[in-house]
């Protein structure tokens, strides 16, 4: 076994991550939608939201996630476990959204606390701090479930 450190090239970091709502072009039930979503990716569920965003038509056409300017947000997607210490920050984030603001709870943890419902530190559902319009069940839900959940938002808000 080598006794001296192994030299590996440093991975390239690429462009800094852009902020702002992400555009999702989706088709559900025969209808085409465009949704500008902000994902509060708190835990594992955010990986499935990323999968849905990367598979969306807008992303594939552009070769990268399409970010908006932040002035128009259709839905706040909360994916992951919200803890009591984080809850005020989530509330502040919701308050800063422009109207009409919709919230989609993605996954079991943000719907009810999920597997951690009995924890001393977990908020038992984000509807304890912000109003929620759609609940997508799953642990984690499939990306298709996010698309179906988004289709339940009031039409015309997109």
């Amino acid at each position, binding site marked *: 076994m080598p006794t001296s450190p192994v030299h590996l090239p440093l991975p390239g970091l690429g462009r800094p991550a852009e902020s702002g709502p992400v555009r999702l072009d989706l088709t559900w039930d025969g209808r085409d939608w465009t949704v500008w979503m902000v994902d509060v990716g708190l835990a594992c569920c955010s990986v499935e939201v990323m999968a849905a965003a990367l598979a969306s038509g807008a992303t594939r056409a552009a070769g990268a996630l399409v970010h908006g300017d932040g002035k128009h947000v259709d839905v706040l997607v909360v994916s992951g476990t919200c803890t009591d210490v984080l809850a005020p920050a989530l509330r502040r984030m919701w308050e800063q959204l422009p109207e009409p603001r919709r919230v989609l709870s993605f996954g079991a943890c943000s719907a009810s606390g999920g597997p951690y419902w009995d924890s001393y530190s977990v908020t038992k559902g984000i*509807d304890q701090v912000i109003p929620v319009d759609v*609940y997508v069940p799953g642990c984690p839900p499939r990306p298709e479930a996010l698309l179906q959940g988004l289709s339940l938002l009031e039409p015309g808000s997109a």
Partner: protein
Amino acid sequence: MTPDARPPRTRGVIALVEESCTVCMLCVRECPDWCIEIDSHTETLPPDDTHRRPRTNAVLDRFAIDFALCMYCGICVEVCPFDALHWSPVAEYAATSPDALVHERDRLASWEATVPPPSPLDPHGVVEDPGPRRPSPRG
């Protein structure tokens, strides 16, 4: 991908076959999230032509799974001794209120139509005819 195209044993939603449920309560007791609720009562059936003594039968009143809590671990499906719970690959049942994520027995039964047939047995696992049984030492 569509539910049919998903891998075998995909965990989307849980279906209930009511005829198989004997209300043994194992799924309720083993669920780590406490998300299954069962209400039931017992009925005493009198002796009849095939039973010489009175029997106690457990009757299911309410079977509910709260999918807002469910973490899809599958313990309930595995522990059921009567195979009354099955996995269905349908994952799209989001709702606008958490109450609508509690599926009662009718809705759980309706998922059974979406449960795919079991995966084929592993061809390398099939045992050839083991031959006649050895006689027992007791004859």
